[in-house]
């Protein structure tokens, strides 16, 4: 990890309240793994005081992209930053997704499930699944499905990105304005019922806690490996302040920033 002053290359609105920022950060681009995050200083002064943790959305050559939702003072200030300005960033932080090993027997469906802004880090994951050199050997046997759930049509994020990578994308909305009118978790049940080799599937999820909880339950019931990426209010981002706990089985806390943000769904006390 490093603390860097990064130049903002682009900061644009992609949907209502959703923004995409591209920053020049060769070090982070070189080191970042899918699922890791950066801590961004949103204000120049002391309000808000703390940095904001944002998942790495895409890793490019010398640059990284952040996709975020303007939900509070910090992210609203961030959305107003302009091209050419400097951004104080610490990263890459945390423990990212563990990519699946080679398929044991038969094809291995890889399922990414995103709720709302949860799509952001899953794009990085889909890209590493598709493009990392190590995986070329078993790419033919590993097909990636992406399930995106959102409140309404305009909140569906990254659909075209996932398609460009070559994933099969299915969409659901709560109001039925696009795709099936249901929650993303229902898409997961549907998919597991129709795909071939469902017993070989591996699940990766990021989204609201309610969604993750249901995904974890489905995975547990079907005995499928499942990794979830969590969100929590954070201060330091490196494991010093113990401010971002998640309760694990056995009445222990782990820190989202350092032990996560990606966890094995089985270990969490949902």
């Amino acid at each position: 990890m490093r603390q860097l002053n990064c130049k903002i290359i682009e900061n644009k609105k992609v949907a209502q309240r959703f923004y995409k920022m591209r920053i020049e950060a060769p070090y982070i681009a070189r080191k970042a793994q899918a699922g890791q995050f950066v801590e961004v200083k949103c204000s120049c002064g002391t309000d808000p005081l703390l940095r904001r943790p944002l998942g790495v959305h895409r890793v490019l050559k010398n640059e990284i992209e952040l996709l975020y939702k303007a939900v509070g003072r910090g992210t609203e200030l961030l959305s107003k930053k302009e091209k050419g300005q400097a951004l104080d960033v610490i990263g890459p932080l945390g423990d990212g997704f563990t990519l699946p090993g080679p398929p044991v027997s038969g094809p291995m469906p890889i399922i990414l499930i995103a709720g709302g802004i949860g799509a952001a880090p899953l794009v990085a994951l889909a890209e590493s699944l598709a493009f990392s050199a190590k995986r070329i050997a078993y790419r033919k046997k590993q097909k990636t499905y992406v399930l995106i759930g959102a409140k309404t049509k305009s909140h569906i994020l990254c659909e075209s990105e996932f398609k460009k990578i070559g994933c099969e994308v299915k969409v659901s909305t709560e109001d039925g304005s696009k795709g099936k009118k249901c929650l993303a978790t229902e898409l997961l049940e549907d998919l597991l019922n129709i795909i071939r080799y469902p017993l070989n599937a591996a699940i990766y999820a990021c989204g609201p806690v309610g969604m993750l909880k249901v995904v974890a339950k489905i995975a547990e019931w079907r005995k499928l490996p499942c990794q979830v990426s969590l969100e929590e209010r954070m201060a330091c981002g490196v494991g010093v302040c113990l401010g971002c706990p998640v309760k694990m089985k056995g009445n222990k806390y782990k820190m989202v920033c350092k032990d996560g943000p990606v966890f094995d769904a089985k270990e969490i006390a949902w």
Partner: protein
Amino acid sequence: MTLEVRIGKLRLKNPVMAASGTFGPEYGELVDINKLGAYIAKTITLNERVGNPPPRVVDTPSGMLNAIGLENKGLDDFVKNKLPKLKNIKIPIIASIAGVNAAEFGKLAKVLSRTERIAAIEINLSCPNAPYSPRGRRACPNVQHGKRDFLIAQNESATRQIVEAARKAASLTIIAKLSPNVTDITRIAKAAEEAGADAVSLINTFIGMAVDIETKRPVLGNVTGGLSGPAIKPIALRMVRETYEKVKIPIIGIGGIMDYKDAVEFILCGASAIQVGTANFVNPRASIEIIEGVKKYMAKHKISGIKELTGALRK
């Protein structure tokens, strides 16, 4: 010109320390810890504590609230597992301790004073997230002050009793960390001094809370938390100044120090050294920048040592 300061038997190469629970080897990739005056470890208790349910932190204007709840693995783990991992830290390591009664504080102080790497002990009399209960399971048998949970540093006789217990158990430098949640901090500081503390560090956090109007619930899992950051600096300065006028032992100033100017303000008000806490989360290099800044300030104002600046506030 020298930045060296002495706190009890402790000799620090500069007056800037990292406050308990806000800094650690995790920052090693970003900052050279060995440039600091001292490193104060996260508070430990005799037995493991799991800490409070989330959320544990929240932003507030120019500050933050925390309700960690003294999560730690206990004394044995600290001595056996944590300390050996700090072998790259060459500066003095100060242990921070908290307990539920005088006996626990005594035991912690005794074990730590026999632990080679520990240079001093800060007794945390003021964690707002783990109050001291005068009755019930957590009772301190000789102290009865009504039914309400309170912080040790909210009560003179409790403060005296705990500091005495630690003093008896350890020959190391003992620093009493005080709470601002009191009507008169100087009386508590005086009690700590009389009981044998080598120094007082002030202030810990203010008890506060944040509310989510959509869910109509408190934001923090623990309902209340400790307020820190630049928002509390003016009150911390006032308390350091008041305490400086009443006690003779050194004062370690804490409270919203973000840059060298803040640090100099505390020193002028009477601090012999300072601790940087919340600023570490915002800018991990804050402490190092403060050391450089204080050095430049001293050169500019032709000051030969920190002692010359301590309490040099003009009327």
